[in-house]
């Protein structure tokens, strides 16, 4: 039985009121959900609250889970929705077009600082400095192992938009690295 299959079986048990099953799902997925929210909101305090809420929502919604998506995708979708709702309540402008300059800004740091870093450190710094909408696509693909269509489901955007965001995310990353002296041949 694959991890995805045991996840579904556990959700079926949760739907019947099995608390052990929901705790097992918590142990299996909590860290990734927590990190996903922390990366989106920039707040571990918020991530703590929201991640807890996600699993309470799992407890409530398990009877209506249809299994059309992976449980991990479903949980990330709930987390995304809750994070957005909370951020809107706090009236924080979490997708700010001006953020698009952040990667370039990262590349503009004094050369002496950049040259002290190795490429891996620079890469990580640029990933962290990406606009949220680009970094989230990168995180979902590289860290959460999500497919194009699953990312579309989590973020509520078309597949073509996922691809476009991935394209620009990687392009800007390449540009930032190039500006820091690490030419990787593309773009």
């Amino acid at each position: 039985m694959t991890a995805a299959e045991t996840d579904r079986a556990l959700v079926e048990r949760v739907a019947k009121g099995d608390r052990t099953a929901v705790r097992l799902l918590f142990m299996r997925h909590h860290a990734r959900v927590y990190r996903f929210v922390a990366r989106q909101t920039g707040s571990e305090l918020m991530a703590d609250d929201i991640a807890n809420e996600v699993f309470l929502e799992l407890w409530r919604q398990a009877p209506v889970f249809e299994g059309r998506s992976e449980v991990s995708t479903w949980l990330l979708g709930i987390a995304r929705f809750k994070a957005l709702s909370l951020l809107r309540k706090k009236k924080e402008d979490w997708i700010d077009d001006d953020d698009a300059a952040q990667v370039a800004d990262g590349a503009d740091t004094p050369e002496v600082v950049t040259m002290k870093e190795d490429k891996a450190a620079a890469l990580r710094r640029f990933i962290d400095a990406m606009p949220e909408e680009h970094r989230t696509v990168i995180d979902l693909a590289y860290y959460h192992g999500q497919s194009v269509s699953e990312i579309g489901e989590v973020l509520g955007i078309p597949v073509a938009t996922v691809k476009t965001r991935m394209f620009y995310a990687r392009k800007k990353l390449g540009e930032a690295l190039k500006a820091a002296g690490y030419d990787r041949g593309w773009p």
Partner: protein
Amino acid sequence: MSAAEKMSRRDKMEMLLPFYLNGSLEGTELEAIEEWLASDPAAMAALGEAEAEFSGTAAANEAIRPPADALSRFARALDAEAGPARAPAASSWLAQAWSRFMAVPAGVAWAAAAVLLALVVAQSFVQTGNRGGDFEIAGSEDDLAKMPFALVKFKPDAKLSDILAFLDQNQLKIAGGPTADGVFRLGVPAETAADYQKLLDLIAAQPFTEAALEGRKPADGG
């Protein structure tokens, strides 16, 4: 013409590389990437760059550490929402023994470990008629706290002698538990993620194991 249609072949391949690396690509897109990797000298270098992004993203995420008490707080929130949990249904006597043990204040508990060990081994002897193995409950608390671990639930009808022999053979240590649901935290003596996975698979494959889940992997776990 859409933005995607205006892209060069290289652009399209670069866009798809992350999904090739995470194993989710299929159909014509997978074929296109594989054909590109086989035919374009620049493709392997591009794949290497994407792998570096993969590692960087994993490191950035893994640097975020969820609170250690998250599960217990969630359990309380769940109880508040759904009402108090039922007592564990006919859980194994081993789980009950551990529950009693873990309820003792920490200082007393560790001093009592040797006594419990003796009881456990003696019980094993009574049940099986054989000599119990040198079942190691724990090292120091610090050692266990740093050790990779897995979360394991044994079947209620599991034989203690089988569990003890298995733990002993594989140098596994009970580092905590059980929870109200009978879940134990097992210290896993693995130095690499691959070793950890082998041991986790081995635990899961035992006839007395009801569930075995990944807890903390060694640092190279990515």
